[in-house]
């Protein structure tokens, strides 16, 4: 795959979101459709809220 502007942008957005504890929404939706078709697909806003709360639950993901 040749890196072009679009893939760099996608990479930057995905990295920035993951740094804030928000994984890729499209990947999650694809996963749900393929493996759990019976479950309702959350909207991005719902997905975002769920992840926001989940991030600060476990043992922290940051350093001194």
């Amino acid at each position, binding site marked *: 795959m040749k890196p072009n502007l679009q893939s760099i942008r996608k990479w930057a957005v995905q990295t920035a979101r993951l740094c*804030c504890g928000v994984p890729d929404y499209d990947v999650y939706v694809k996963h749900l459709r393929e493996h759990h078709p019976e479950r309702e697909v959350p909207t991005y806003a719902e997905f*975002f809220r769920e992840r926001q709360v989940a991030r600060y*639950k476990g043992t922290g993901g940051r350093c001194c």
Partner: protein
Amino acid sequence: MQTAVTQPSPAGKILWVAIAIVGAWCLGVVALRRGEPINAIWLVAAAIAVFVIGYRFYSKFIANNVLQMDASRATPAVLRNDGLDYVPTDKWVVFGHHFAAIAGAGPLVGPVLAAQMGYLPGTLWILFGVVFAGAVQDFMILGLSIRRDGRSLGNMLRDELGPVAGVVAMFGVLVLMMIVLAVLALVVVKALTHSPWGTFTVACTIPIALLMGVYLRWFRPGKILEVSIIGLVLLLASIWFGAHVAASPSWAAAFDFDAKALAWLLIAYGFCASVLPVWLLLAPRDYLSTFLKIGTIALLALAIFLAAPTLQMPAVTKFIDGTGPVFQGNLFPFLFITIACGAVSGWHSIIASGTTPKLLSSEGEARMVGYGGMLMEAFVAIMALIAAASLHPGVYFAMNSPAALIGTTAQSAATAISQWGFVVTPDELLNTAKNIGEGSILSRAGGAPTLAVGMAQLLHGIIPGEGMMAFWYHYAILFEALFILTTVDAGTRVGRFMIQEIAGLIHEPLKHTESWAGNLIATAICVGLWGYFLYQGAVDPLGGINTLWPLFGIANQMLAAVALMLATVVTVKLKRERYVWVPGIPAIWLVVCTLTAGWYKLSGSISFTAAAQKYAQAIADGKVLAPAKNAAEMQRIVTNNYVDAALTAIFMLLIVTMAGFAINAILKAWRINHPTAHEEPYVALGSVPTQ
């Protein structure tokens, strides 16, 4: 993959020989040139060459022989893919995420403090420490966790060293966390003491974060980038407005606090921030600080490359004999605990066994993320060292020495520092303070202000302009305060969960994290624990950092030693005994450093016990020693020092206990002639249906 390291092509060989020669030459210039100042670029080039060689050869050796990473083996992300926590992710995305998680205030503070011994000792420890210890720890723990379903450090210790070892380590992590939070909060206190401009801008981050939180919740859910840009613009506006606040006598008075008042404010803030819902304050602040952190590190790198400053600090100062004003103690062992993050940091083992192992789509990528990520962090540490060493040494010592040694006026400070051999005039000190828009630069220990002045001078050299230096200084202070406060918020929350888990063992209902009573009680305990040490630092006779940073260093290196012990045990359990030295030697080195440093802090002239006795003796003689103003404050200083001594003893006991468990496990595994490590069974990547 039992194969040996692949042989490079002839062209490749020539390239690597060339890199080695350039690296050795630069390192030679850094280490051997005396009497004339050298340019920082030599240091940068030496660092890059060492890191590139370490990565190409040593990390590959570890991947192929010690961990035996296998690209054909399915990772937890592939096996347990749930689209949320376990997701096979592009390696560059994982790398970015991992680096953002491990980079914090630590690598920026430690090297600045260590610069009192000159730039050379710190540089050598960062370069060789990271290649042979720090990056080895991060990479090996990541490698072990990938083979164990992405389990945490605590779980792996329980599996491989036994349940008691797991509990001991969990307790150690909790205590370490309290010290980390206290010492980081103290860095903020030191930076903001009697600085209305700084205090105003940092205070502004609270309403800005609340606004961002509300915006993200109701107006534009999930639009992180958009809201972060709004936040950044507001932050820059608050720095600009802060200058006017500082200039107005009535407004300045409202934001002018002493260290004690700031400590109480931070304690109150920490409590509120971790009780409120995360979306309101913690999360938006986290986004802002993450992006600002990466951006500022990039800015610092750019400034160093463009400004190419000359290092004004000597390569080695006379303070390697242990008489330095910034922290007490000899080069060995105190240099090796002062620079913790940047060379080797125990905290990373928690992150390397946290989210990262659940994201890697191939074992082959662990080397780049684990080992490579840590090399990047070491580079940040080198840049912080350069920023500190490029300052006028007189200014550096004025900022980092306690008032007990240099007094409280520019005149007394200049006299004292000139006597140490770093000639400086009172005017130079006053001018620096004026340029950065502050009343005084004296005794602002803790790394952040020094780094901020260094950065401000570098950036000012590239983008000159009237008053811009003060802007850059307050920008740097704001950025450090912002991400330290985020760590304090998030750390208090994590500490609260850990306390609730422990309390749940005694009284079950306390465990429920949704219960308000459990929440408030555990948060109060957590804030009380770190708040105690923070307040102690604020009233400390030697300014706090001098006292607390060694405790932090000992605790952090202790955790690193424990992580490396785990790696050593597993290496033996896998019957790869001939590679036991890879994690074993750094583990022994860290045990020796922490125990020696702990011993000096328990007995002898620079110990907590000696400080306690000095004040106890003065009480008996009816005298009052500064900064105490009465007998009650004297008594408090005595108690604080005994608490620190007890804590040091606990850390030492903890490391000896863990070493006992590790040696026991190693001896047992050595006698058995088959592998006994608790790895998950091999599943071929090709046999897992693709997502």
